[in-house]
């Protein structure tokens, strides 16, 4: 197996012109989830929640290449993917809080974020189950004769489930415009990849489907964006699906109940030093120390945005319980 490592353009080449924008996009996700952590501790979040802190460059990079009309599906660890689509933060908070202003009226919760108007056609609680749906969105784009694409995020652990296999195969044989974005955050729940998966580079599995499989540094926003651009371009051009394996790391445990004590300290240290936000900030200030001001400004602006979104969400009423009967059928 020869999965293709893609160094391509990177932050090593210098910070991009729109660094401030990219930083803001990643910070929105980071700080949104900081706030969710706060809500946890106040007992305001029911069930489970899965944070994606540390993985922001992947979703921001991919989302930067999507356009209105494109479809995006993601997992229970989908706050980042959904927010990167430009979904309003107040509706995201409200959904997790179970309020009527929530994305889906409080009926879904953290694992079921949908904002179809922005292409976010569903987060999914079943590992791998959204991949066939992404294939269907790709089929639809092709059938309708558009150059729309479908993007699907999923984890390393998901590459072991049957639906992954069937989806990549069908997307390939029908040459559908699907970008499969494998967020390899090194663990599936508590299990390191090597404990469950007998190959080192998961992107190598693309070969089983006659599909390009690329492996990139998922914490480098420039690399991530460039790689996504290529895969999306292939899809739009009718060249079929691509599998991108983005190496990354989740900062916290699998879900709210996991303190992630199973991770070796040096591993954690290594990856925190490679935090995608830190990497971008470092690149910004390396050539231009005055960029620190830009960074601080972005941080402050996003803090404000988060605060007012959260205030708005908290001000939203509980849903009318009668609404639970809506939308079971058309």
């Amino acid at each position, binding site marked *: 197996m020869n999965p293709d490592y893609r160094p391509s353009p990177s932050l090593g080449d210098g910070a991009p012109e729109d660094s401030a924008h990219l930083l803001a996009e990643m910070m929105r996700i980071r700080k949104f989830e900081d706030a969710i952590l706060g809500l946890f501790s106040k007992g305001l979040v029911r069930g489970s929640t899965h944070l994606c802190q540390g993985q922001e460059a992947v979703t921001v990079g991919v989302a930067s290449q999507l356009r209105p009309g494109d479809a995006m599906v993601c997992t229970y660890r989908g706050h980042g993917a959904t927010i990167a689509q430009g979904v309003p933060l107040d509706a995201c908070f409200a959904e997790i809080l179970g309020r009527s202003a929530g994305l889906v009226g409080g009926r879904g919760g953290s694992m079921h974020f949908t904002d179809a108007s922005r292409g976010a056609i569903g987060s999914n609680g079943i590992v791998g*189950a959204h991949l066939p749906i992404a294939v*269907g969105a790709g089929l639809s784009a092709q059938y309708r004769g558009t150059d729309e694409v479908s993007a699907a995020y999923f984890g390393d652990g998901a590459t072991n489930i049957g639906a992954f296999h069937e989806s990549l195969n*069908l997307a390939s044989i029908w040459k559908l415009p699907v970008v499969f974005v494998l967020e390899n955050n090194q663990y599936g729940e508590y299990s390191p990849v090597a404990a469950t998966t007998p190959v080192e580079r998961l992107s190598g599995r693309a070969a089983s489907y006659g599909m390009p499989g690329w492996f990139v540094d998922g914490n480098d926003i420039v690399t991530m964006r460039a790689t996504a651009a290529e895969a999306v371009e292939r899809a739009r051009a009718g060249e079929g699906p691509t599998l991108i394996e983005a190496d990354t790391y989740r900062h916290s445990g699998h879900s709210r109940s996991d303190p992630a004590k199973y991770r070796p300290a040096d591993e954690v240290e290594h990856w925190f030093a490679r935090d995608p936000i830190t990497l971008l900030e470092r690149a910004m200030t390396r050539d231009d120390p005055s960029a620190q001001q830009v960074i601080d400004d972005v941080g402050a602006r996003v803090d404000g945005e988060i605060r007012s979104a959260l205030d708005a969400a908290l001000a939203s009423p509980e849903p009318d319980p009668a609404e639970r009967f809506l*939308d079971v059928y058309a």
Partner: protein
Amino acid sequence: METINYRQAIARSLAEAMRRDPDVLFFGEDVAVAGGAFKATPGLLEEFGPRRVRDTPISEQAIVGAALGAAVTGLRPVAEVMFADFAAVCFDQIVNQVAKYRYMSGGQLSVPLVIRMSNGAGAGFGAQHSQPAENWFLNVPGLKIVTPGTVEDLFGLMLAAVEDDDPVLFFEHKNLFAVKGQVPAIGGAPIPLGRASVVRRGGDVTIVANQQMRHVSLAAADELAREGIQATVIDPRTLVPFDDATVLDSLRETSRLVVVQEAPPDGSWGASLISRVVSKNLELIDAPPALVAAEEIPVPYAAAMEERWLPRASDVVSAVQRAVAY
């Protein structure tokens, strides 16, 4: 009108639906080039071309999921799962995805799709190719379930299923393929989902039965008539939504309920119907409601065994006689 058989009605109704709406596409294993493993879909590829009629790999999860993804992004896919038994390999896509997708999206997304499956026993296919699988889905809100028993119903219900904005599980009974009936030479009207059909009227007992059991029950009703017992036979046609009203109307006259189904009793639509009737309208009932059901064993292969697994007209006759004598 034209006389065709149940098998032919499948391609006829699909073709009609595809002519009406360019957003309808159809795919499944060997449905296109080969015209279907049951030869139920010949000619569709030829008429509608490879963009709209597609063969797939053996990947039922991908098939159903692809239909779902296409449905929520503007199309009206019809997917085939060859034998209903194989719904088990894509059960997650059906119950956790398709059934809940509108709800989990807070109503943002519609799921206008049809999953066609060949259902049921009687043809010697053994335990893994003969199950009446419709009952696996009853406890899962969000699906509609259709089980036509005649050519006319198959044709009209298929048109309705494809037009419907909700997901429909469409069970075609493989032991009814040779049954004949009439369809219009061109066009045709949908039969609304959720309306039972009263296929015979009689004042002594209400028999509710679908698919093969509709025919078995009609034979039983003929036999009963010779004994002077007049049966109403109601074919619910769709199990979800279920037309309780038509059953209750008949019970007002007959006070006796016999449900006949090709599936074991527990967790079945028949048991559910009886439970609804007695808990809401016990006063309508003068005799114990009977559930004439298949046996609680996997479907056996040998003819003498499989025949007994299926409810027979004589079982229906006995159940009715007991109800009338009560």
